[in-house]
């Protein structure tokens, strides 16, 4: 799955500390979707899918499950938007987040993953196109480059933390370091690799990264 929208125009503005006006954009989306504009639905998916995906991935720690649930979230959100159920357009983010939480809770509480009320509208935007294999490859190579700048111990700490889910105390024993050193290295390595990814993204000329989120 690709989530390579590292530095959209909106992102760059934010990183540079520039205020971003969101509500008018959301308002336009909400109104356009309610009036049957299919392109607006596509724009909505591109804007919210990465956020929903990031949230579900963090909550479930299961990429396959997150991928399944994100479809449900987007379908339910679009259905609601088509029906004009979003009254406060300034809170579109909260609305989508609420749907994501509900679907996640339903999944945890019931074997029936899909809520009974969920409709399957015709002509849904193709969620798959929101994920582009080229973007995915670029993201992958960029992340690889960033990781390769870390020393082996830092890489190991990130792997044991992010992949194996181990606590600093356990990692410390495995790497024969003190837990405090592991904690510090973990935070520093994360910050370093994230900053480098952002920097590499900025320098990356593949501007379609940024064009994909904000229209």
């Amino acid at each position, binding site marked *: 799955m690709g*989530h*390579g*929208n*590292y530095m*959209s125009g909106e*992102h760059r*503005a*934010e*990183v540079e*500390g*520039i*205020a*971003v006006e*969101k509500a008018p954009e959301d308002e336009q989306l909400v109104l356009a979707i309610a009036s049957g504009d299919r392109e607006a639905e596509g724009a909505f998916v591109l804007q919210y899918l*990465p956020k929903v995906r*990031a*949230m579900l*991935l*963090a909550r479930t*720690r*299961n990429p396959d*499950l997150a991928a399944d649930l994100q479809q449900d979230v987007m379908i339910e959100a679009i259905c609601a938007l088509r029906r004009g159920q979003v009254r406060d357009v300034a809170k579109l983010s*909260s609305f*989508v*987040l609420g749907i994501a939480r509900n679907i996640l809770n339903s*999944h*945890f*509480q*019931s*074997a029936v993953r899909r809520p009974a009320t969920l409709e399957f509208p015709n002509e849904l935007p193709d969620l798959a196109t929101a994920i582009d294999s080229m973007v995915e490859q670029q*993201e*992958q190579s960029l*992340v*690889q480059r960033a*990781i390769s700048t870390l020393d*082996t111990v830092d*890489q*190991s700490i*990130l*792997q*044991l*933390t*992010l*992949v*194996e*889910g*181990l606590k600093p105390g*356990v990692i410390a024993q*495995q*790497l*024969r370091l003190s837990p405090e050193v592991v904690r510090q290295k*973990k*935070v520093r390595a*994360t*910050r370093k*690799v*994230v900053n480098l*990814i*952002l920097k590499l993204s900025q320098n990356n000329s593949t501007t379609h990264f940024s064009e994909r*989120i904000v229209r």
Partner: protein
Amino acid sequence: MMICTGSLADLKALPYVEGTLPASEVEQFEEHFFDCPACLVRLQAIQAVGRELARNPVASRREPEPRIRLGWPTWLWTAGAIAAVLLVCVFTYESLEARLAKPTVAQGPPKSIPQMQTAAQPAQPTATPVRISQLADMTLPVYSLPNLRGESLDAHFEAGMKEYAAGNCRGAIKALAMVPGESSEGRVAEFYSGACQRRMGNLASASQLLRKVADAGDSPQQEAALYSLAQIALTDNDPVTAHRYLLRTISLRGDLEQRARGQERRLTELIAQDKEAKGKNPEAK
């Protein structure tokens, strides 16, 4: 309108991804990054690093070598070779002395002298498969009711655990398979299903289930899952894997630490004895 340079993500994105951010802060952070591209992008970057490391694990990263190494350290080889030479010398001397003392006894051909290089051949840890597998603890983990805090258990889970308590592994597996994987009992169900599969001898299925529990991170079942994986490896005559899981069990410092330590010690002794025996008698199987 929002101005953020990602400072909140710098503090909270990693604990959020790790699952260690307090519940109250989780919701706040989610509200924030849904409206803050700078924080979202940092969160996505951390998740991408995790994905990349899962796809391409750090090649040089290794858990510390088990104290028993199947490839012996050089000094041990040297010591073994010296010991073998001494043994051969003693044996040859005694044999010669005996022949000199009793010259009239019909002499057969001299016994072949053990070849020196056989003492240095790599020991096969599986040379004592039966003894290694005998170390395995086959008891089923004890199930104790969780603190419910007013919530009821999943019906399938309850049914499955009744079967489990009655010693009916087949029935337990069937019922526990119906428990939703991501429910609060999902992981517990996977653990006890894994324990049942192990009891029934389905080691591959058991390993798969138990690894999921062990790899899912901190949970009440993690330690027992690691311990059970060590037992599977013992049953499977795989001392390296068994040793690795025993060390991971010990590292959690939980209820099973002492049992795991005892097994680890016995496993170490067993392999050392095996190697010693091979060093002394290279033809020993």
